[in-house]
């Protein structure tokens, strides 16, 4: 397996690239042909695997993606932005979007597209590697274990916090209260959605005491379903484990507080994706 690869960065934060650099074991095993962050090269040469990070946000993104896709045998969409728009997708909320366009009156620059798009709305994608960003281990799996990689089903299974019989009756905001280091965050009253978020990340956030915000996207069962079905499943988890009034959970899930992250799931429902293609 000596396929070469390239990294095309669209509109994003470079976090995916930083994570890829942390997965340094690929060096010497796969030839990196193009990645402007680390490599000066004039153009993207024909290449076996193209990793695309970031969302299609400007006309420049659209042009570069379309051009690069023709030179690659397979494309892996990397990170939440490439797969569903990520945090940048907030820019399409009506009010924010208007404000953004008012500000964009600069000249001789790539224009912002009317609507941000995930990569597979523009070119065919062979595989998906979700996460904000994906861990170095996931990058290694994407580059080397084309079929054999089987992550845990959910973040919950990665997490390792102890579930108890405690049934909290109040919902805590994610930044409130003293977090017990060992007990399940749901048992402590936090709105953690790790129970239906795709596993494989090793649950660094919940281990550090922050509820899962779902950056790896939905677990297999929810990839091709609507976000309403996915919300309903989270509501069931809370009904089973807590005495928090169900309407509070329902409201919180749809509130800006979590919507800022849950928006990521919108595109999963709009564009059904083959579960087998998602790492």
């Amino acid at each position, binding site marked *: 397996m000596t396929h070469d690869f390239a990294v095309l960065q669209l509109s994003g934060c*470079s976090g995916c690239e930083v994570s890829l*650099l942390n997965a340094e074991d690929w060096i010497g095993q796969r030839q990196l042909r193009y990645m402007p962050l680390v490599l000066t090269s004039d153009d993207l040469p024909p290449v076996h695997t193209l990793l695309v990070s970031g969302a299609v946000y400007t006309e420049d993104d659209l042009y570069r993606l379309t051009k690069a896709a023709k030179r690659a045998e397979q494309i892996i969409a990397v990170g939440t932005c490439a797969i569903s728009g990520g945090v940048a997708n907030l820019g399409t909320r009506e009010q924010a979007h208007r404000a953004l366009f008012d500000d964009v009156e600069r000249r001789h620059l790539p224009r912002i597209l009317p609507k941000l798009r995930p990569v597979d709305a523009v070119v065919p994608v062979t595989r998906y590697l979700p996460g904000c960003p994906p861990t170095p281990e996931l990058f290694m799996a994407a580059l080397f274990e084309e079929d054999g990689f089987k992550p845990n089903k959910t973040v919950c299974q990665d997490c390792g916090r102890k579930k108890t019989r405690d049934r909290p009756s109040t919902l805590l905001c994610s*930044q409130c209260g003293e977090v017990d280091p060992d007990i399940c965050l749901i048992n402590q009253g936090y709105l953690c959605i790790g129970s239906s978020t795709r596993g494989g990340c090793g649950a660094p956030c919940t281990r550090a005491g922050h509820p899962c915000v779902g950056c790896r996207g939905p677990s297999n069962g929810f990839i091709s379903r609507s976000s309403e079905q996915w919300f309903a499943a989270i509501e069931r988890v809370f009904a089973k484990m807590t005495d928090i009034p169900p309407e509070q959970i329902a409201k919180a899930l749809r509130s*800006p507080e979590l919507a800022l992250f849950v928006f990521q799931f919108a595109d999963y429902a709009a564009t059904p994706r083959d579960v087998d293609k998602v790492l």
Partner: protein
Amino acid sequence: MAQLTIPLSRIEGHARVTIQFVGSRVLSAHFQATEMRGFEHFVLGAPAQQMPVIVPRICGVCSTAHHVASVKALESAYGVTPPPQAVRIRELMMLGQLIQNQATSLFIFTMPDLPGSEGVPSLFHFDSADSEIAPKALQVRRGGTRLITLAGGQFIHPVRAVLGGVTSGLARQRCDAMRQEMIDLLPMAEELLERYWELFAGLEDRISTLGDDTPTYYLAAVSPGHAYYGGPIRVLAPNGEEQAAFEADAYSKYLTEVPTEGSYSDGTLFRDELLRANSLARLNMLPELGTPRAEYWMQRFRQDWGYPAHAILLFDLARGIELVYAIERAIELLRRDLSNGDMRVAHVPRDGEGWGVVEAPRGPLIHHYTIREGLVEEARFVIPTQHNIFAIERALRVAAERYITPQGISLELERAVGRVVRAFDPCIACATH
């Protein structure tokens, strides 16, 4: 009139340089950020307390700085002071970020510019005598990421800092292991820096300059002691005299954000004067760093280039000295028991305005929020790269004038443009936030 457009690589994000000239007369040189993030718009209406986990997504390279600036802004709005243990853990995160960033900038971005007659395309292209650079450089930068992971929770977008403190302490055993890792990394970082210093001298011999631009004002939010957690913002004149010192809430009295037509990034001016932030600004502002190995390198630096020092390419060497400092300071902090003690103070939410500043790897980063009924009503991010925009453009013009001559355009121009821009280590995702 002719125009050259020079694409840029080995920097964070998407940007280009355009140079306009007639004959050998340079009319303008512009540094253009060609991407746009838009966070000031899309965080409107977000719950204020959620900001520390949203804003790291502005930039995966500078995420820790945004995370910490954000909790500081919230603490300013709600009038709370985090306990000392929490501040130490946050400083560790910032040091992890500094290690990761300075190693990336030095070894991945700028070191390939140094060898031979025209540099190499990347750190993977050094010749066999220097084949150890790439694996060692990546190991050092990964040490920084691992420190962020330990102190910050998540490995790119940290979660541990919260309004009033941190979610939890750091297990003793993990701190001990990390401390040992830092102890092991220190000689490796110094060995890389030594080699960098040699190659740097070779570059100076080859191009006979380290930057001819005249000095500017310097901007940094560093104080002796815990230098990089972010103190008062200070401005230094080119002769080394302090011109102003102010807290984050007064930034708009001193710093003006100027929109630029051909770039998605604004620039910053101090009373109409150009500014330079980043490593050299800090070293010009700090009489000493306070850790032994960093002090050795700083003395060597000052012997060679004076104090304050001004040549632009010295920003690169200064980052190397900070890399050594950050590792040493992390070793110091990790000696303490950070597993227990007060980690967090309570707060009462209220409407109001808050300002937070940290000294990010590229300079002072300011977050400014207006909060109403728990939601963000207005958010401003004043970004370190913005502070450097006009200094970058003036330095580019100087380089263009040097290499566009009546004899023609020297092939060195494109390399010089790359070196000038990389010396300031701009971050475009942040600059266009």
